[in-house]
């Protein structure tokens, strides 16, 4: 691998690591609760927040865009937390409805003001290959805070805390790597490791699947010149299958809770 190829992969790989750091643990929880589409809904609402800010006349730029996005995501998180308590049996369906409502509300608002469309695209279709090092710092800080909250206050995070953490993590990562890759990082490692009883082993192998999948995808992207986000999603899926069907059956004896 040449120095030049490393310079292409470097920032993209660091961005993937940051996204994985929060999404692997959050993903196992999302899977346990059976609310896997929550990231799509939250990301879409974050985008809606930016459009709304733009329409209300704040010249949303830079930091203000982030404030608008996170505020909207937090409101959505609060509402979804409330519906989770009120109607737990239909929570997944309500999340789906929230997703289509947010997505179509964006279209309705943009019909009068398409200028926010650019922000919406920036928010929802981040491309991992365009990432540069300066963009990583704020996401690294947010990820560290989310991880801290997750590991030190996990047991007190039963209610709104979980949804709020999720809002921060998804809003930050979607802009970096796009919604497809966020969804894949959240769900695929969690799926591959769902049979592991020990919490620590599950995290260890979840991170392993994520890191191997992302790295393989980025290397493939450079060697075959393919759009990076899409090929990383596929290599994550392949890494998960190899782990769950070939590797785990050989070593499952280590899993004694």
């Amino acid at each position, binding site marked *: *691998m*040449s120095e*030049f*190829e490393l*310079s*292409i992969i470097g920032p993209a790989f660091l961005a993937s690591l940051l996204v994985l750091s929060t999404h692997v643990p959050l993903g196992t929880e999302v899977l346990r609760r059976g609310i896997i589409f929550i990231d799509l809904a939250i990301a879409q609402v974050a985008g809606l927040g930016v459009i709304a800010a*733009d329409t209300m*006349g704040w010249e949303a730029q830079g930091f203000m865009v982030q404030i608008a996005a996170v505020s909207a995501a937090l409101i959505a998180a609060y509402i979804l937390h409330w519906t989770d308590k009120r109607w737990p049996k239909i929570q997944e369906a309500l999340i789906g409805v929230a997703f289509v409502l947010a997505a179509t509300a964006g*279209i309705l608002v*943009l*019909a*009068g*003001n*398409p*200028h926010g*469309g*650019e922000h919406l*695209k920036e928010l929802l279709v981040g*491309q*991992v*290959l*365009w*990432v*540069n090092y300066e963009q990583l710092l704020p996401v690294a800080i947010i990820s560290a805070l989310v991880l801290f909250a997750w590991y030190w206050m996990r047991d007190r995070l039963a209610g709104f805390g979980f949804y709020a953490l999720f809002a921060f993590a998804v809003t930050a990562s979607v802009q970096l790597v796009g919604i497809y890759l966020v969804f894949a990082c959240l769900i695929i490692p969690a799926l591959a490791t769902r049979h592991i009883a020990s919490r620590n082993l599950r995290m260890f192998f979840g991170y392993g699947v994520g890191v191997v999948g992302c790295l393989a995808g980025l290397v493939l*992207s*450079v*060697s*075959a*010149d*393919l*759009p*990076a*986000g899409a090929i990383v999603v596929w290599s994550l899926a392949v890494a998960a299958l190899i782990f769950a069907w070939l590797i785990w059956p050989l070593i499952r004896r280590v899993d004694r809770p």
Partner: protein
Amino acid sequence: MARISFRAGEMNRIALTLLALLAPLSANALNVFACEPEWGALIEELAGETVELAVATTAFQDPHRLQAKPSLIAAARNADLLVCTGADLEIGWLPLLLRRSGNPGIQPGNPGNFLAADYVRRIEIPRVVDRSQGDVHPQGNPHIHLHPRNIERIAEALAVRLGEIDPANAGEYSLRAEDFLARWGEARDRWEGRALALEGMRLVSHHRSFSYLANWLDLDIVATLEPKPGIPASGAQLARLLEQLTLNPPLGIIRAPFENEKPALWLSERLGVPVVEMPFTVGGNEDSTDLFALYEQTIVVLEEYVQ
């Protein structure tokens, strides 16, 4: 050194250029990165084999949007000269690509950054930049390449710029430019002669991609189907359009190869007029192999309407 392979259907030009870039032998040739096929074609006219050319988009890709691929970053990193449209056309991806390229020479404001729209008089510049108007392009319409006078001005400026970047070959660039402009002037006279028959032709276009062409040939573009890119027209807008056009139908509906076909087909069915895909840029149809052929094909397509 890594192998870089390409999917079938990718532009051979990028592949060839990249292979050349990776081969140390060609290190002396000037590397040019063009954002759109029309500027790639213009570079070929002005520099021919003297430069290594990489073109970022094909005629079938919307230059407003682009997927990030490693070869793009590689090409931008190695470029001595970047030739793009500017006027915010590539705003969604070019700033990111430039930042990511780590190539100081092609950053905005440097000689290695050539924006074609800086050298022409742009049309459709809003008098008042007001966000309530929606689709505000404060820089005016960026689809500038379908007016031959624009091509002339840009060719002159680009030949000068090539000479500044690569003084060793400056003489050749200026000779080639002279030759190109002479041939282009003759061709323009011929096209203008034929286009008299097209004057006042009433057309509907998908987006405002053909405004400069309409200006040049005196075409009458009576409506656009998607005035705000990416936002579907509302029911009321479509109803108004249909009412207006039923009374006084256009000759046809034109669109660029990368534009969504559905709105055009919808209208075509209701009005009983044909939808025609214009080549729009070099490579947009089989015969549009260079700038001359692009203009020739554009006029041929329009002539078929009139017959």
